[in-house]
């Protein structure tokens, strides 16, 4: 390995400098306040978890985990998401009374380093989990809160696409008979390889009607009418319940007045095994990757509690990219002082701080290039020698 330069950071790690920090913390508090208004309580969990528990339960692929060993030789992981740690703490503590629990978090999560740029190995997620609440109203609440949070953060153009984990699977098993055969198609769908999907469907020994049903799945994207189309191709009752739930979800979303941001999309499938109901992704116009995702899952079962939950997580880096530039106005005041008027300067600063104004105290002899330094402030006051200049 080549010698490191002193400025180098481990691959995929980023600094947050003041300008970005400011923006990030503003967005975080706008979203966080919204979540709190809806009654979600923030929690923190450890950065390190056991590989065997949280690491294994997490939806993040094994090769994407950061692993290390503790003193006893147990394998630890840097948490790759917040859903699994929250499922752990909920299953072991918070769900003892068997009531709905609403939790929120904003935390940094870790994913394996990748050579290519644009893929940080550590990034912040802000999100919520509505646990032990199985109604469609709860699913709707999570989606409505997601939309409300993004709007509060100032995001204007975005779309939530909702799919259902059970629909494609049920359709495949109904037509193809076995899970094994269904998995082949599901893999094509997951890999977004529609060419391969179509070729595979056409190579199967099926009636042309069944082939048509499988091919139509790829077209099931859009508004409310998509559910009708989905009902048409799902012949047996076992798959219909999911669709009736989605229909009801649409009504809930309409009652929240957020239907304009929502579309259905039955082509969204997940490699994650723990999703058990709806799943969704959020897209913003000018960012090439989803800025957030979520869904209903039954992860608590892995921690010994049978309960399901719905939640979402928004990627802060992607959201900030979607929100774009817009440098915040600098309102900081700088008070330059010389020794003889130090106390006067301190008093002035104290007064401004009490009024909630940002004021910096700067000994005039401590700055070499005064012109360059003053440019960093909105206003300046000089308490030097005998004069007072604003």
């Amino acid at each position: 390995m080549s010698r490191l330069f002193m400025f180098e950071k481990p691959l995929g790690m980023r600094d947050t400098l003041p300008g970005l920090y400011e923006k990030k913390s503003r967005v975080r508090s706008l979203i966080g306040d919204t979540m709190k208004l809806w009654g979600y309580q923030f929690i923190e969990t450890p950065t390190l978890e056991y590989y065997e528990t949280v690491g294994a339960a997490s939806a993040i692929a094994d090769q994407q985990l950061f692993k290390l060993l503790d003193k006893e030789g147990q394998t630890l992981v840097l948490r790759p998401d917040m859903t699994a740690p929250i499922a752990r703490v909920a299953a072991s503590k918070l769900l003892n009374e068997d009531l709905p629990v609403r939790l929120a978090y904003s935390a940094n999560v870790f994913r394996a380093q990748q050579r290519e740029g644009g893929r940080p190995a550590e990034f912040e997620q802000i999100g919520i989990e509505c646990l032990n609440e199985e109604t469609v109203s709860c699913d709707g609440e999570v989606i409505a809160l997601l939309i409300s949070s993004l709007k509060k953060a100032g995001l204007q153009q975005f779309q939530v696409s909702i799919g259902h984990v059970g629909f494609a699977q049920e359709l495949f098993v109904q037509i193809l008979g076995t899970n094994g055969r269904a998995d082949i198609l599901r893999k094509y769908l997951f890999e977004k390889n529609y060419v391969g999907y179509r070729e595979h469907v056409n190579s199967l020994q099926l009636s042309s009607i069944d082939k048509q049903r499988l091919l139509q799945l790829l077209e099931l994207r859009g508004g409310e009418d998509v559910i009708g189309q989905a009902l048409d191709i799902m012949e047996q009752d076992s798959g219909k319940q999911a669709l009736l739930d989605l229909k009801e979800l649409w009504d809930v979303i309409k009652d929240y007045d957020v239907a304009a941001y929502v579309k259905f999309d039955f082509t969204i499938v997940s490699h994650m095994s723990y999703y058990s109901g709806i799943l969704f992704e959020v897209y913003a116009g000018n960012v090439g990757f989803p800025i957030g995702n979520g869904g209903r899952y039954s992860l608590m079962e892995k921690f010994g509690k049978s309960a399901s939950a719905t939640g979402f997580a928004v990627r802060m880096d992607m959201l900030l990219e979607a929100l774009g530039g817009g440098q915040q106005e600098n309102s900081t005041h700088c008070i330059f002082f010389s020794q003889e008027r130090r106390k006067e300067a301190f008093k002035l600063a104290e007064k401004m701080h009490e009024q909630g104004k940002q004021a910096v105290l700067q000994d005039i002899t401590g700055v070499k290039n005064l012109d360059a330094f003053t440019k960093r402030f909105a206003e300046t006051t000089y308490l030097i020698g005998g004069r007072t200049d604003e």
Partner: protein
Amino acid sequence: MSNILTMAMPKGRIFEEAVELLRKAGYKLPPEFDDSRKLIIEVPEEGLRFILAKPMDVATYVEHGVADVGIAGKDVLLEEERDVYELLDLNISYCYLAVAGLPNTKMNEVAPRVATKYPNVAEAYFREQGEQVEIIKLNGSIELAPIIGLSDRIVDIVSTGRTLKENGLVEYERIKDVTSRFIVNPVSYRMKDQQINDMVKRLSEVV
């Protein structure tokens, strides 16, 4: 968000066939399209912007979302494994990936070496055959490698087989047929669904 759809096009061999296909699908592309050296060509009448990229890079632009859609060879998609939708087989620029080498030779038993522009494809292929090989990545003129003794085999695309023949190489195995595909960024697929659906419809009528 702009309503212009950005399309990444592969420069070189596939380009002309792709342009012809777009014209067949009813897109009015200006004549300078055919011999321009520009990297970005705007066609506002059609609501399109084209970026001209190295074929190997098309999927990268699309995955990162700086291009909404693109035309990429299946060889590139297999090698790069980018997170993009592969919506249509355009059935143009047909060729195939193959294993080739000097005639009547066997691979070195201790350390079989394979030179290729497609290290991921090559490694995956030989692994499926139950063989662990050492890969040497080259960027062009792959046929040189076995001739001058850099490797036992090469993995490359073959269209007519002429290059292999002229260099005294023979094809050993065919890995996969390759045609160009219409690919789409997952976010654009949702956010610009009408434009993209329209394009898919028009293209699928002419392929």
